[in-house]
């Protein structure tokens, strides 16, 4: 699985350093508070039993262990969580199997919220949000598929009808009201293939 690690380490520059001595200045005492604010409310109550890691499909494949990530969050070792923020498949198996009924998946989601607010935005998030603002849907309508739809006798795609501009306007208004466009640095004009 060497290739996989290369892929996500190249995206985010930090590298895990196991032999490095961690001093107090490497720790972020506000990290857990921040995670709780973004919805990972169970982060400090984890007892480190490891059931979540045993059932996690991603933990089987790469150097990402749910339990370890939760431990890093509890200690405030922010640097150590940077590599693995975007690999959770949000399958919620960890939540299903947690004996204390905690929700590790929500902690991973909170880590993503923090990443976005620090400016680490993966291209696919930006592309999907830009598509939503331009087309009103996250998937760009495909010309070949529109032809297939005609062959099948399906109704026209709503986004090709004149009434769709109103829908798009509403979606853009909501995104602007929650300031999501400014958070990601996108506008309603640009669309990404």
């Amino acid at each position: 699985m060497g290739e996989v690690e290369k892929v996500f380490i190249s995206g985010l520059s930090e590298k895990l350093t196991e032999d490095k001595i961690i001093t107090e200045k490497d720790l972020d005492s506000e990290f857990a508070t921040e995670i709780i604010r973004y919805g990972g409310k169970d982060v400090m109550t984890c007892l480190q039993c490891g059931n979540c890691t045993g059932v996690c499909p991603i933990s089987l494949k790469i150097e990402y262990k749910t339990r370890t990530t939760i431990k890093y969050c509890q200690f405030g070792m922010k640097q150590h969580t940077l590599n693995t923020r975007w690999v959770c498949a949000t399958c919620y198996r960890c939540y299903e199997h947690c004996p204390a009924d905690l929700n590790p998946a929500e902690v991973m989601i909170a880590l993503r919220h923090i990443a976005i607010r620090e400016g680490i935005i993966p291209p696919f998030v930006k592309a999907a949000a830009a598509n939503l603002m331009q087309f009103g849907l996250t998937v760009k309508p495909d010309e070949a598929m529109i032809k297939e739809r005609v062959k099948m006798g399906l109704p026209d795609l709503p986004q090709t009808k004149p009434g769709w501009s109103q829908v798009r306007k509403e979606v853009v208004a909501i995104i602007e009201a929650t300031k999501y466009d400014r958070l990601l640095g996108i506008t309603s004009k640009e669309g990404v293939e």
Partner: protein
Amino acid sequence: MTYAYFFGCVIPSRYPGIEYAVRWVTGKQGLNLDVVDIPEFSCCPVPGIFYSTDRDTWLALAARNLCLAQRGKMEVMTVCNGCYGSLLKATEYLSEPKRMGQVNKVLSKVGMKYTGIAEKGEGTRRIFRPVSVRHFVDVIHTDGVMMELAKGIKKPLSGLKVAVHYGCHYLRPTEHTAIDDANDPVKVDDIVKVLGAESVDYEDKLACCGAGGGVRSHVVELANALCEDKFKNISSENADVIVTPCPFCLLQFDNSQKTFTKRGIPVVHVAQLMAIAMGADVGKLGLELHNVSCNPLLAKIGMVPK
């Protein structure tokens, strides 16, 4: 109760055959359910992207869709696990009065207000019921509809070995999605059995396909590696076809198989399999648009592929 189709983003633009199958199965030739279109529906929005990065935006966009169903006093019928998980979770979030107030403040910019559907209570009181979000499989798997389905089968799929893949957001988290047993789901298996096919049991049946949560978009090699595990387990039981109720799982199996095998197993949506058994025009189900050829499947059930 009237249902509103919610096809989402992937089905109409990537797998229109699923849309045809769902419309056919729920339409006059099929089970004759009361389902209408709401063309103003936008993206659900995608949980792996919007729920993961900004909950307020996610909730407001989901509430907009729910408002449209609320206006027509309808139940939302989703055909995708992602849309199902996203919208259902949104109704749970919106049952908190504080959240609902925040969301309505945003929605007021587009002239909408989410309250839930008003119903007559005792005397002059009104009760507000959250907009109900149903999965296509859940709608089909009710007593009356299942009996209709059993009656409407023109071409039983006897001898077909089906590997059912449920998909994560159909099953979990159970606090939101309690339509099936999270550790021993039965609904899609039941539908497959009614169609006359055999549902094979395979190892790690409830494992993730590897696409969700942005994994396929971000680290495609990891998504393929997870799919390969799934594929090995399924092929060791000699299954003829993979059936899933989720178009994103379908997309994952369909695109990922070519990276590790030459002899892929065809993968179809449960609605497409139902449409085949109920006698729909196979040429219109969009099976030729799938990357993994569905011809072995058609040959197995005695239909000559075009």
